[in-house]
């Protein structure tokens, strides 16, 4: 006989809050006429992304995101949809990462990434009626307006080198993580927008500036919470970008993993649309003052 698992018993309050958050988010989207959708977790091909390694499952793959299936639904005429689902990414375990985690993903037809900023703002305000959030000794004001910063502006404001220099020296990610992210979402949440094209494999190019794509990341307390695109609907362009990602996978000695062929053939039917993935575990972390993502799930992999 051993004592009850104390580490688990201690999680009751946070797991209750987690349940409340997920239920509130569901009610938020259902109340705005989004269709809640379910799609398979095990699929023949994910979107090939150079930096995301899928986990194999009997010849197919566990989804790294539900986007392939949800975009096929968009292409078939489903307008607004959301999904709360599990996704898997090989080897990702850190203070903010679990190899199996919970995404909230939603799509809007005939919309662009600006419309998703409004959804984010309203959804998070709905979860925190007081408009004030405290996490690990820092305070955040959730009242509008939220900060909107282009990637280029963020480099000019915070980084030791310019955006173009970081691209030519191949240290974009390092500078972003070390010098920029810690300052994002420190007074209000921050939308970091307009990424260099090579960091936006599925996003629509900006009309007035084709070096950049309509992508944003939402940050709170320096933590990345959500990633959004105005979706690319040009099937030829998408195929080319997938092949570039596959080449990068090969160069890194991984894969290449297959690309979703049915998605590519149906992409031409997809209306202009915008889609976003929000990390629910991270949002729960920030709303329960948790230091490590393991505190807001019953079982991180180490405890299984």
């Amino acid at each position: 006989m051993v004592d009850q698992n104390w580490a688990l018993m201690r999680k009751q309050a946070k797991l209750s809050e987690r349940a409340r958050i997920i239920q509130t988010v569901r009610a938020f989207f259902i109340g705005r006429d989004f269709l809640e959708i379910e799609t398979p977790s095990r699929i023949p091909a994910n979107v090939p992304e150079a930096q995301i390694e899928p986990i194999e499952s009997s010849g197919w793959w566990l989804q790294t995101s539900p986007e392939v299936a949800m975009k096929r639904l968009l292409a078939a005429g489903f307008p607004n949809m959301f999904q709360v689902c599990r996704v898997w990414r090989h080897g990702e375990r850190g203070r903010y990462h679990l190899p199996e985690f919970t995404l909230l993903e939603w799509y809007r037809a005939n919309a662009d990434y600006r419309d998703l900023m409004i959804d984010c703002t309203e959804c998070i305000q709905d979860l925190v009626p007081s408009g004030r959030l405290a996490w690990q000794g820092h305070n955040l004001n959730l009242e509008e307006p939220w900060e909107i910063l282009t990637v280029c502006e963020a480099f000019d404001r915070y980084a030791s080198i310019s955006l173009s220099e970081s691209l030519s020296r191949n240290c974009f990610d390092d500078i972003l993580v070390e010098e920029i992210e810690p300052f994002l979402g420190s007074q209000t949440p921050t939308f970091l927008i307009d990424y260099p094209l090579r960091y936006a494999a599925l996003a629509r190019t900006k009309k007035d500036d084709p070096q950049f794509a309509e992508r944003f990341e939402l940050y709170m307390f320096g933590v990345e919470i959500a990633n959004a695109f105005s979706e690319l609907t040009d099937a030829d362009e998408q195929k080319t970008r997938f092949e570039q990602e596959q080449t990068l996978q090969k160069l890194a000695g991984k894969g290449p993993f297959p690309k979703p062929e049915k998605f590519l053939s149906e992409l031409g039917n997809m209306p202009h649309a915008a889609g976003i993935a929000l990390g629910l575990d991270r949002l729960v972390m920030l709303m329960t003052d948790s230091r490590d993502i393991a505190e807001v799930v019953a079982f991180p992999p180490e405890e299984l």
Partner: protein
Amino acid sequence: MYTCADLKKGLKVLIDGEPHVIVQFDFTKPGKGQALYKCKLRNMLTGALFDRTYRSGESFEPASLEERGMQYLYQDETGYVFMDQKTYDQITLSADVLGDDKFFLVDNMEVKILMFGERGIGVTLPNFVNLRVTEAEPWVKGDTAAGNNKPATVESGYTLQVPSFVEEGTLIQIDTRTGEYVTRVKE
């Protein structure tokens, strides 16, 4: 060789021919970006601490240190004394070298001393140790809320969080790798 996927707290690697231990580890990855493996390393010979960030694709040579089975004897003004029970060789490790491990030493405990040549540079403890609580607030009757916790100090002077039902005199099990409470020990 280790890859980045092997990096974690406690892993020992050779850097410039000297053994280092990872004392803090974090995996970070900007959205859609490259994985970065941030480590705080301690040079096991000099004690020097420094930060390093690694990227996927890098590899590491394991610091394959010889381990010698020894028994913990006692603490004196020079440090913590261990003895090889076959040869009766003794080795003394300082409090700095031991870090928090010093709180989990129990008289006559069988440990493994990490050797770099003839020099002892660290210790591997059993994964679990039983220590008696010497200081804790009494259990408030009626405090049955699951998961409530409070600080407690054990006989070695180490302080940790324990469930509210743990009282002074309770024998508890501690995980020496994390320093965290595991369970009460039935006596």
